[in-house]
């Protein structure tokens, strides 16, 4: 009996061993930067393993008069939240329209096809045009411009995802609601939205994270007043003498939203990232 069990047990241990090594390789850089954030510049430069942790880096990042970090953080919050709400509204309406309202099939295909192409092309290819357009109509260096840009960048992903979720809503429910006299607004509010809530959560969380993370477009469309967190980190690296420990502290603070969302909403994130790819 014990002999029969020992082989699978050994291979299970072996598998866990490999997975633990992989997990350590993934986690190590994060632990390294967290440690760096609590070090003084000197203990980082001398490579001490044991060190007296200091909060000075965080204090400098958050409260120093030369640091824009708090403003960058709130800019990121505003732009990511607003663009996420817009993305969800536009994508859900469009998904309902495309999946349930008998458009000719070329409309559906060209919308989804264009979404795929636009999603995969480097955003920097359009950033130049956005810059010159926004400058002409006075939207450069404004929240509105950045929110619109991020809405456009994340719309393809949300449109694709909401399309899959709306398609899975049983058509009989929509027909039944119609027979009961419900118009489009009521069908959307009382039939579609409650049934695609997991889709909204997945698309919303990912859209927020992607907007929070987006760098190239904000770099080109923003100035000091509207710059977001990634631009702040990018600026640290451009200084002549890089304040490494402060860059580490700012990085740790900027990872918080992603880490929090990963811990509380992993299910939706996984679902969002794999929707469409699997089907």
């Amino acid at each position: 009996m014990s002999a029969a069990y020992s082989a699978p047990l050994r291979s299970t241990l072996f598998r866990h061993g490999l997975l633990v090594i992989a997990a350590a390789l993934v986690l190590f850089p994060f632990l390294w930067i967290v440690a760096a954030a609590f070090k003084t510049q000197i203990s980082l430069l001398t490579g001490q393993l044991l060190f007296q942790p200091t909060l000075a880096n965080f204090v400098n990042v958050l409260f120093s008069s030369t640091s824009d970090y708090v403003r960058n953080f709130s800019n990121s919050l505003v732009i990511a939240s607003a663009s996420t709400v817009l993305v969800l509204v536009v994508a859900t309406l469009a998904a309902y329209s495309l999946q349930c309202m008998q458009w000719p099939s070329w409309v559906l295909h060209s919308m989804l096809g264009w979404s795929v192409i636009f999603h995969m092309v480097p955003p920097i290819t359009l950033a130049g045009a956005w810059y010159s357009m926004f400058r002409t109509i006075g939207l450069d260096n404004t929240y509105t411009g950045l929110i619109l840009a991020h809405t456009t960048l994340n719309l393809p992903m949300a449109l694709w995802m909401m399309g899959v979720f709306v398609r899975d809503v049983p058509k009989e429910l929509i027909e039944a609601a119609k027979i009961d006299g419900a118009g489009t607004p009521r069908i959307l509010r009382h039939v579609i939205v409650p049934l695609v809530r997991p889709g909204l959560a997945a698309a919303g969380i990912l859209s927020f994270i992607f907007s929070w993370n987006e760098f190239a477009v904000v770099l080109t469309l923003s100035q000091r007043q509207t710059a977001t967190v990634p631009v702040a980190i990018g600026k640290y690296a451009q200084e002549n003498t890089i304040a490494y420990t402060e860059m580490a502290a700012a990085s740790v603070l900027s990872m918080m939203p992603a880490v929090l969302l990963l811990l509380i909403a992993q299910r939706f994130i996984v679902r969002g990232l794999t929707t469409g790819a699997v089907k």
Partner: protein
Amino acid sequence: MYLSSTENARSASPEGLVENGSLQPLNRDRFWRNLTLAPAILLFLALTILPMVNLAVLSLHDIDWAQGLSSWTYVGLKHYASLAADSLFKASILNTLVFSTVAVSVQMVLGFALALLTSSIVHGRLFYRTVFLLPILVPGIIIGAIWKLMFSFDFGVLNQMAGAIGIMPRDWLGDATYSLASIIVVDIWHWTPFCFLLLLASLETLPQDVYEASDIDGATRWQSLWYITIPLMLPAIAVTFVFRLILAFKVFDEVYLLTGGGPGTSTEVVSFTIFRRFFTEDRPGYGSAMSITTFAFIALMIIVVSAVTRRKGSTS
């Protein structure tokens, strides 16, 4: 009550036809159909199609700024012609191709191995998946910052470890011998989890009865991997590979932070060259020509790939 039931009878008429039998959909339906799609169409028109047109027009001009006014000079296809002679652009295309092919191939192998391992264990799946997801969700620029510290010549952990085992420290980012390889390592670390996740998701949808049957026939684990899992997974593997390959062309944040395209042109990638020409050097006409060319190239690749997969899908 009675009122609403007559209303119901009207909307319940088959296929949404109006009572007088004409084949028009109800005006109200058409109104809502157009209204619900309008925001998405407007966004796409205003912020993707119009900018493309804008870029196309820009790419045929030289733009000079003087006292806040721009003067446009039509130059025809001059910018496109000079693209072919731009050694930086050529270097960036070559680097991007090497970067994405090598990085994505390694990501696929590692991601597939991790997915197989994770799907074969019973306990701890959630833990491993949570850990592996982390790099996908963190801003690319922060991943650059993390690795900039780890690659540092003076105090980076890589050189510390190398020193501990008696290897000379290396300038991982500042030496053209290692710089592209270093960027590739960062990308592998960053995106292997994405391949892992997609491959794990399709592993979990494989039919279990095939495995039971092969178990009964006495297949070893390697045999069932080679003769069942990999053939069944081939479509998913191909799709994930191509998907990641095209997305890898987007790389910008890490390069911006880690090397700025240098030393020399050793890590110059396409997105970064466009950024440099358009913004840093303030050459919108030429930068636009570069953008249009890149856009067209990637769009073409996507169209070809999806045509091929569609044909494969319909014949099998």
